[in-house]
Every structure is written in structure tokens, then in C-alpha cells.
């Protein structure tokens, strides 16, 4: 599914958040959107989904597979969301209803978009759970009984169960530890590629983006300041802001590597 944003401006209570953004996600492409906190990344994701806050105003055009999303009615948007577009949220602990079991959370999009018998629905939920690496016994549990990584797997299963053609992942690994981050990114990438879907991956961390995306937009103060292939941006960033982001990612990776190396060395010494 292709998505095109042209001259998009978003403001909340007359305060500009995003200025004159133009970007494109091609069919089957994994695109990254990187920027520091408060740069307007999530607002762009919400604008594509048609989920901007009531007080936000939006101008410009957003087309999904050639269909204009801006100005669509609530019903038309609801039909598009979940079926054609899925979203994975930042904090899995808060994006799952605490009083609904995992099974009920995952089957919700199926209930909304497909008229299936309950047995079929249950079978699909179980198949999806297997796909994202959730043991079947966890389906009857509540979100607070799962770990952060398991909760995010539930979020991914919920977003992907209807096989949408576009996945928007809004900082899906921010609330997770580094090992789980890697697992979740690998899972997301493999599922998106397997379904030949497109993905918009939002993050503030270049080290995460390098694994997840092929193309990347850098957002600073609500404007696109640099774009290009993710590998190129990591190797030779042009803008000072991008250089800072890349440097921060490299420093963090170095620290992580040094710490894990020291940990491994310590473990070896203990064994000896």
C-alpha cells in the first residue's frame, strides 16, 4: 500500500506542530521517521490514521493508495483503520485494555471487520499468536500477567491479524530492554515482509532504525530536514541534527557493546 503526504501542516490550538511535510511510503517499502521527542512524529502517524485530537487542525493532502484521507467521514475512516492500516503503539502496557484478556484484544479487529464464526475467529487468533511467538496458554491471561515483550507481541498480533497493507509502528521498542527490542524489530520486519505490506517505523533511535527500515526521513522541529536511504544517512549524515542523532546512536551502541563484552568477560572469569 502506498501513502503520500503532500504539504501537510498540523497545529494544535493554533500552535504549529508540523510544517509543510511531504513524504512517501511506497508499496512494500519500510520507511523510517526519526526525530527527537516532541518533533511531531506521532502527530504524522495519527494524521495518516485519521486519529488527530479534536482540537488539532490539519491542512494538505494525505492519500492512501490514491484515496484522500483528509476530510473522510468517521465511518469511512473506521472501515480503513484495522482492515487496511494497523498501528503498533509505543507503550504496550497502556495500549492494552487492562480488563480484557489477550484473546479478546487480538480478536477485536476481526470482530470489527469480518463476520466470522467464533470457532474460526479463535483459530485465527491462535494462529496469529503462534506467528508472533505467544504461547497459547497466554491467550487467556490479562495484560498485567505478561512481560513487556509479550505485551508488545500482543500489540503486534492485534495490528496484524487482519493482514493490513500498511503498518504504522509508533516507537514500538522504546519501552523495552535492548534484547527484547531486537526481537520485536526482527519479528515486525519479518511479518511485514512476509505479508508484502508497507511500514512506517517511527523512532528517535538510529540504531533501531538501521535494522527496521530501508528509507528514512529525519524530522526536526516539525520539518523534514533530511531524507535518504537509512544506510546512507547512517554512513554520511549531512545535517548537523542528523549527525547528532547518528553520533548518539553510535555512542549508545558502543556503550552497550562494551558493557555486554565486559559482562561476557566477567562470566568467563567466574566460570574459570
Amino acid at each position, binding site marked *: 500500500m502506498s501513502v503520500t503526504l503532500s504539504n501537510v501542516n498540523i497545529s494544535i490550538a493554533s500552535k504549529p506542530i508540523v510544517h509543510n511535510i511531504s513524504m512517501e511510503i511506497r508499496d512494500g517499502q519500510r520507511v523510517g521517521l526519526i526525530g527527537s521527542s516532541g518533533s511531531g512524529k506521532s502527530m504524522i502517524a495519527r494524521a495518516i*490514521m485519521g*486519529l488527530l485530537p*479534536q*482540537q488539532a487542525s490539519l491542512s494538505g493532502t494525505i492519500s492512501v493508495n490514491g484515496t484522500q484521507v483528509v476530510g473522510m467521514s*468517521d*465511518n469511512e475512516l*473506521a*472501515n*480503513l*483503520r*484495522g*482492515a487496511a*492500516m*494497523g*498501528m503498533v*503503539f509505543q*507503550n504496550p502496557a*497502556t*495500549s*492494552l*485494555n*487492562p*480488563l*480484557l*484478556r489477550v484473546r479478546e484484544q487480538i480478536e*477485536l*479487529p476481526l470482530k*470489527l*471487520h469480518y463476520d466470522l464464526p*467464533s*470457532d474460526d475467529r*479463535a483459530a485465527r487468533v491462535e494462529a496469529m499468536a503462534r506467528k508472533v511467538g505467544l504461547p*497459547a*496458554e497466554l*491467550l*487467556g*491471561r*490479562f495484560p*498485567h*500477567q505478561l512481560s513487556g515483550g509479550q505485551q508488545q507481541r500482543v*500489540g503486534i498480533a*492485534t*495490528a496484524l491479524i487482519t493482514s493490513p497493507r500498511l503498518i504504522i509502528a509508533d516507537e514500538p521498542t522504546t519501552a523495552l530492554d535492548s534484547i527484547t527490542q531486537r526481537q520485536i524489530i526482527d519479528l515486525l520486519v519479518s511479518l511485514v515482509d512476509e505479508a508484502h505490506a508497507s511500514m512506517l517505523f517511527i523512532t528517535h533511535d538510529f540504531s533501531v532504525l538501521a535494522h527496521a527500515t530501508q528509507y528514512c526521513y529525519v524530522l526536526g522541529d516539525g520539518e523534514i530536514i533530511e531524507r535518504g536511504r537509512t544506510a546512507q544517512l547512517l554512513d554520511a549524515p549531512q545535517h548537523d541534527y542528523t549527525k547528532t542523532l547518528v553520533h548518539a546512536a553510535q555512542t549508545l551502541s558502543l556503550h552497550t557493546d562494551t558493557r555486554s563484552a565486559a559482562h561476557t568477560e566477567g562470566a568467563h572469569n567466574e566460570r574459570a
Partner: protein
Amino acid sequence: MTDATPHNTQSKQSKQSKQPRQSKRPEQLHGWRRTLHRAGIIVSTMWHHGTGRFSMIVLGIWVLVSIVSLFWTPQSLWATDGYNVWAKPSRTHWLGTDGTGADVFSWLMAGSRTNLLIVLLTVIFALAFGLLLVALMVSRNTALAHGSVVAIDALISIPTVLIALMLAVPLGASILGIVIACGFGYGLNLARVARPQALLAARSMYVQSALSNGASATRVFFTHVLTNIRPVVIVQCSLCAGTAVLAEAGLTYLGVGVPSGVPSWGVSLTSSVKFISIYPMTVIWPGLIVTVVVVALNLFGDALHDAADPLSNPRLRKAQ
């Protein structure tokens, strides 16, 4: 001793494995079977707590007596004995007779169905009205949400008795008047109490997640908001039910409740209260019933709140 031998253990295991599984495991249940399974756990949990058991027994007797009174009472309601007024309890009149010589027990039995009807209708009315107001207050339309909050704050200052008195003008003394007045008052109260919890749910990330999956505003309200305000709603409904019983007695005493001639606990109290110093038992019986039922309703609400909340009931949490 022999039980511990490997041979016996093995044979037991093989016997067990040969037996076909008769019932489905809880995690395989779907739809109404799963709902029924969870309802069974809730009832069982309530039964295992003293207050829950007491309330279930009292309310069970109330419902049973109401049903039985439709077909049978010890004496006819309209059979009066002028030579046997204010009689003490006897084999013929189990709780004695009132000032007209009518059987007190039969009138209390028949009154239980009127009170049950009033309580059910009031709770349904208050629930529907209160939830409608909650939906308006958490709506994404800011003007509608703010307007409904102001309207509720203004309307809640009107006492229920005053509403009942105003309704008595067009309706006269009637059950409908009690239901509308109490339902209106408790609906407003339910909405005001449930609003903070509902607002938290409506503005939560899981509602954003549901919207991103294509859920409509109605679906979000019933699946996510209502699920999260359920504990508050259960307690408010039980309080509403208890107060409806008291309001029936109070409003009937004022002459704007159940009309005379229709059996109800309020009518039984009103008809004998003037003679309390001479014949106290005819007042004590309906008074005692009202007190016990109101206590049971309040305890039922608390017990249901604890048993139906999966976060506080481990049995419900384990059930699939």
C-alpha cells in the same frame, strides 16, 4: 501403602488416559459457554464469602416469595375479618392481622413483588439514563461533554422527593412516579460518580489502539469504557436498588408512591404506622423486611463488585 507402588500409579494413569474427557477445558470455551462459565465462578465466589452468601440468600428468598405470591398467599388479600382486627400471630394469621383484619403475612408476600418490580424498573431506568449521560460526558465533542457536565451539576441539586411530588401532579400516586423520580435522581448520581473513571478510560491509549483497529465510538464505549467503569456501576446500582426500596416506603407514606389498595411494603407500613404505640408488630414486620432487604442489596453490590473484578478475583483471572 500399596498406593505408592509404581505399578498402581501406572495403572491409575493408564485408566485416566483411557477415559474420554467429558467436559471442555475452560480455555476451549467460546461465546455464551464462556460467559456462563465466568458467571458460575462469580456466583461461586460470592457464595464463599459471608456477606455475599447472606445477600444471595435474602435476595433469593425475596424473588422466590414474589413469584409464589403471584399464585398463592396464605389468605386472600381482600379477605378481611372485622371481628379479628390487630390480631396477634396465630396458625391462621402467621404474622397477625392489621386494622381491617387483613392477613399481614399475605400482604407482605404480595408487597414483595411490587417492591421487586419497582427496584428492577428503577435500576434499569437509572442505569440507562446514567450511562447515556456518561457517554455524553466523555464524548469527543467538547461542547457536548462540557454542556452535559454543567447540566448534571445543576439537575443533581433537585431532590428526588421534589421530583416525585411534581410527577404526582400528572401521574397521581403511582409506581411509575417512583420509578421515574428515583431513576432520574440515581441516574444523575451514577453519571457523576462514574465520570472520572470513564474519562480516564476514554482518553487512554487502549482506546486509541481500539480506534486504530477501526472501532466506532459506540463500540469503544461498550467494549472499553463500560468494562472499566463496571465496578463503579455495580456499586451504584446496588445503592440505587437499596434506596429505591426506602424511597418506595417514604414516598408512599407521603401519598405520592404506591396507591392504597396495591400491596407493597410501603403501603403495609403506612397503613399501620399511626398505631405503632398500640400495635407495634404490624409496623415492625414490614420495617424489618425493608431493613434486611436494603442491607442485603448493599452487601450484594459489594460482593458482586469484588467477585466480578478479574483484578481482585484470582479465580476469575485464572478462568479462560
